[in-house]
């Protein structure tokens, strides 16, 4: 029975593959919603539920954080996903941005 040959590892190749994978899955961007005086609190809760699929309790928690502390970090995601969420939130006219998580 023939043995399965061990894959040959070339110097440097492991690191480059690892780097590529990490940058793809590394959730390094924050989706932030900022307070403003114009959006109704009830509306903000409604939008969080629609965009993130959260239950009422979780959506209310983040809405109150926005209201009382001026902002709330809604998600920590890869760049692509964070951009998607910011687009969605802005389509509902919420003041949302993405920032690098240092």
């Amino acid at each position, binding site marked *: 029975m023939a043995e399965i040959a061990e894959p040959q590892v070339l110097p440097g190749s492991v690191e480059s593959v690892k780097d590529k994978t990490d940058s793809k899955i590394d959730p390094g*961007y924050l989706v932030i919603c900022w307070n403003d005086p114009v959006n*109704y609190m009830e*509306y903000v809760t*409604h939008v969080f539920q629609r965009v993130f699929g959260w239950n009422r309790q979780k959506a209310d928690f983040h809405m109150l954080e926005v209201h009382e502390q001026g902002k709330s970090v809604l998600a920590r995601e890869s760049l692509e996903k964070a951009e998607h969420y910011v687009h969605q939130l*802005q*389509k509902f006219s919420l003041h949302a*941005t993405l920032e690098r998580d240092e």
Partner: protein
Amino acid sequence: MKLRTRQNDELIFELTERERSCLVNVLGLYPLTPPAHYQLSRNQCVPEPEEAQKLLDEAMAEQRAGHRKALDEFLNSSTRFSRAGRKVLFTLSEPEADFLLQVLNDIRVGSWISIGSPVELPPIPTQGNIRGISIMEIAGFFEGNILAALTSD
């Protein structure tokens, strides 16, 4: 504006003729939020920030065009408004209510920006801001009623 019934996926509101007229006219202002209002990031932290901002601008423009068209169809639907004595019945599905909230909020936010984004609401009316305040409050009136209906048990 009063919620008359909410069954399955359908909401029926009772409006006065004056409210119907206000709703149709305020919706005619969509879109009102200026495109430059939407910024992807506060500190340009993304790689290729100009390209990323351009993508957001395109997504918003696409949504506005789609919503404007959908709004015309929404208002022209033969079943949208019907008479019940002196009242007007305003019928919409829950997904349509979601859509209308998005549109009304754009109008509310856009009119708020047009009067200088005041921190204190409602601001003291002046000749310069009275139109913007009125639009903001009318959009907010309908928005509040729809939100209350969607969250009522």
